[in-house]
């Protein structure tokens, strides 16, 4: 087992285990903090896939931005000290059906993924993707880049409007 293999299993275990905690725990604060570790594991996987820029972005935006937002949301809408921090679940039968469905989808996807002959090209990892991503964003993807900035503007306008104080 070389280092990369060990790293892969470490990060995937991190992702899957904490991803599962997010979904199965009853305590919403535990879920939010497990999400942090899951995101971190995914960032690790990106590093192994030689996507350095994406790994940094993952940590900065997901952990630094979205997760903080989520934790704020949790704190503003739940009483941490009370029982309310526990989150309910729906009935047992529905959970059974949902579980069955999920396992089915997972099994199908894994089967597809592990048996198919993918179109594989020779892959030579780059030193750094930042340069290429930057060039692509400002040339071929310029309009899409603008659209993305617009998306953020819309989100700001919408969120600011909806969350504004009522009078």
């Amino acid at each position, binding site marked *: 087992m070389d280092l990369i293999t060990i790293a892969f299993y470490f990060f995937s275990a991190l992702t899957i285990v904490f991803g599962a905690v*997010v979904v199965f725990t009853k305590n919403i604060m535990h879920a939010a903090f497990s999400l942090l570790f899951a995101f971190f594991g995914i960032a690790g*996987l990106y590093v192994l896939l030689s*996507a350095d820029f994406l790994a940094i972005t993952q940590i900065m935006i997901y952990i630094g931005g979205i997760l903080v*937002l989520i934790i704020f949301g949790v704190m503003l809408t739940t009483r941490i000290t009370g029982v309310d921090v526990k989150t309910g679940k729906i009935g047992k039968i529905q959970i059974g059906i949902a579980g069955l469905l999920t396992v089915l989808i997972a099994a199908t996807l894994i089967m597809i993924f592990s048996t198919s002959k993918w179109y594989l090209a020779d892959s030579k990892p780059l030193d750094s*993707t930042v340069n290429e991503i930057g060039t692509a964003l400002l040339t071929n993807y310029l309009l899409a880049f603008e659209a993305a900035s617009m998306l953020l503007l819309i989100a700001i306008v919408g969120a600011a409007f909806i969350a504004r104080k009522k009078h």
Partner: protein
Amino acid sequence: MEIGLTHYLVISAILFSLGLYGIITRKHAIMVLMGLELVLNAANINFIAFARYGGMNIEGHIAAIFVIILAAAEAAIALAIVLNIYQNFRHVNIDEVDDLKG
């Protein structure tokens, strides 16, 4: 066995299913949102893994960046709405918010 594409895809498939399960079974709006984030991340792992093993073209990375932007935008609006629901209903459990029927 050397770590290859399939390994990453299996991780992504498991994460996708976990997220889906969370979205379906959770009552709390913010927990549903967390499930959504897991699903989006699973799609992102796919994109990046495909970019790495499909000849290192940058398109997959770009797509992943846009997905992250989307996730941020979605989370912002979702939380604004959740805060509003909390003000109106005093809780944020989706299935108890059911004025719309018929």
